[in-house]
């Protein structure tokens, strides 16, 4: 009885509710277009405008004009008519991610720029995000969430109990699958966009393959922000590779040299951010991938040493010493290589080598900020 009454009430409610539900196709946004202040879209923009105000003064945003100009240049090459509507914020964060807000705020984590082996790979990420903007995906997703949860709550009221709980799961599932569809659209359109801009579209799948390798080796795959929200990485990589194979990539470019030159001044800091995640197995894969294209330089060798020194298991001390020594034989080892070498020699019990390394460290930099600490260490060594 109660149920029947509820159902008829529900019908009335649904009729009432249908008046306000916003339906119909959402058209792509045009260059320079702003939502009308009366729209639900304007509300989303307003919220992200506030977010952007906070972001502007965040200490994690990298202000370097050259790096920003470089990333922006790729974006404008992808879609010249939209690039004035997009504000890129390069945020210093380890790990692989980028995101797009409805108001044109594009966030690119430094972890993604570090992992991109060339301009084409970075272009594939920017293109993907741009598709989210042009396709108004944030608005689509919000309306989907709103309509689905509205329906679920009425259903729950009408049925109650287990059916209501199931309705909740069904709503969640529907929203997630809607999101996945938008990700697929962003992948395929983003790929076409990078290809049209003259980039080798086969690179799009490669950045995912790199990530899959990291995930496979990771000590804690669930901890990564990216892996937890993007489960179908393998499928995406495969689809992207198939799409790229069907396009003619003759005459396209990779932009490897420019990417290496633009990111070189930051690589040390960004690698340090990754190292501090303390997922050593994953970090090792990252180093392997970064050294794949060329000879392992002093900086990468230093970080390989750091990985072994900090993990400190089994043969790690010996491996760290070997990596630091190789780094110091190159002309590109950072000055702290001597300090790290001293620390690991000390822990291995090699006092003469410890002393030599610390002394070289103090001599190598004009005035290291931890001079007093190192001098103290030197007094401690028997």
């Amino acid at each position, binding site marked *: 009885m109660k149920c029947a009454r509820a159902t008829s009430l529900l019908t009335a*409610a649904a009729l009432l509710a249908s*008046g306000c539900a916003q339906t119909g196709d959402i058209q792509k946004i045009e260059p320079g277009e702003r939502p009308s202040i009366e729209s639900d879209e304007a509300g989303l923009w*307003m919220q992200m405008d506030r977010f952007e105000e906070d972001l502007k003064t965040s200490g994690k945003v990298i202000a370097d004009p050259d790096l920003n100009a470089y990333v922006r240049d790729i974006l404008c090459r992808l879609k010249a008519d939209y690039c004035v509507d997009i504000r890129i914020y390069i945020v210093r964060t380890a790990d692989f991610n980028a995101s797009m807000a409805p108001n044109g*705020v594009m966030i690119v984590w430094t972890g993604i720029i570090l992992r991109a082996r060339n301009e084409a790979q970075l272009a594939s990420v920017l293109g993907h995000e741009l598709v989210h903007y042009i396709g108004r995906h944030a608005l689509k*997703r919000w309306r989907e969430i*709103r309509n689905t949860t509205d329906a679920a709550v009425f259903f729950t009221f009408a049925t109650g109990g287990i059916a209501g709980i199931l309705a909740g799961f069904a709503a969640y599932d529907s929203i997630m699958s809607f999101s996945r569809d938008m990700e697929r659209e962003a992948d395929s359109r983003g790929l076409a966009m990078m290809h049209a801009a003259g980039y080798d579209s086969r690179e799009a799948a490669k950045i995912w393959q790199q990530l899959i390798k990291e995930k496979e080796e990771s000590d804690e795959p669930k901890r990564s922000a990216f892996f937890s929200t993007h489960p179908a990485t393998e499928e995406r990589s495969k689809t992207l590779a198939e799409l790229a194979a069907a396009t003619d990539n003759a005459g396209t470019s990779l932009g490897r040299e420019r990417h290496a030159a633009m990111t070189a001044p930051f690589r040390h800091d960004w690698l340090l951010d990754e190292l501090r995640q303390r997922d050593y197995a994953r970090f090792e894969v990252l180093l392997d991938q970064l050294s794949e294209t060329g000879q392992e330089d002093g900086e990468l060798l230093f970080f390989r040493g750091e990985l072994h020194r900090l993990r400190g298991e089994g043969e790690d001390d010996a491996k760290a010493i070997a990596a630091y020594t190789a780094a110091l034989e190159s002309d590109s080892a950072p000055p702290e290589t001597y300090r790290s070498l001293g620390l690991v020699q000390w822990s291995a019990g090699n006092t003469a080598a410890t002393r030599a390394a610390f002394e070289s460290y103090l001599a190598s930099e004009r005035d290291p900020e931890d001079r007093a600490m190192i001098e103290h260490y030197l007094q401690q060594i028997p």
Partner: protein
Amino acid sequence: MRERRRRAGGHGLAALAIVLLLGACAQTQSFLTSGDLAEKPANPHVLIMPTDVELSELTAAGLLEPNAAWTAAGRRNVDAALDALLAQRSAIAVRYDETDSAAKEAEAQLLKLHSVVGGTILVHKYLPALALPTKKDIFDWSLGDGATALREPYGADYALFIYLRDSFASDSRKALIVVGAVLGIGVSGGHQAGFASLVDLRSGEIIWFNRLVSAAGDLREPELAREATHNLLKDLPL
């Protein structure tokens, strides 16, 4: 990579929402600093920090959809009510300059700091279970010395921070309220909630703090916005 719609909310924000939504009718509960109140000038200059106002529609499932047009109207109404209220108290309102300048960076950090301190006060002063042992019986929160940097450029004695949120039931939420009433399930409509704090720019101390919660009110209406603003600031020590 996924599109971002709104800022990620931490535990702090969730707790804040709980504190703000506890009351039903218009309720306020204010605190005055435990320290000595510095002597008040006869016509204090009060710097009104950017009023943080947001109006939303409450969906049937209880989600909030921010509304830009309502927010613009609400903010206009609250700003007008603030000017009128301060004039009544013989205080001189000074507007915060929101245009970009070299000083903006430092001032923006102060705004962020205030939102963190304000949220902390809401959680640890208004939720008895989370009362901090060292701050249970006193009120001695501060933005620190940095806040005094606002004093000189604006010639202000105090800074007033206002945070207000207002929400209204969507048509489908209203329908759900009717269905709920028949089934005996309570479904709430929109809420008004907010807090205000007064900072002494000579010390950076928060000398007064108030929280407002209400199931009624409408910041879109000038008269009701005036009422809410007066409720929020009725025992402002100026």
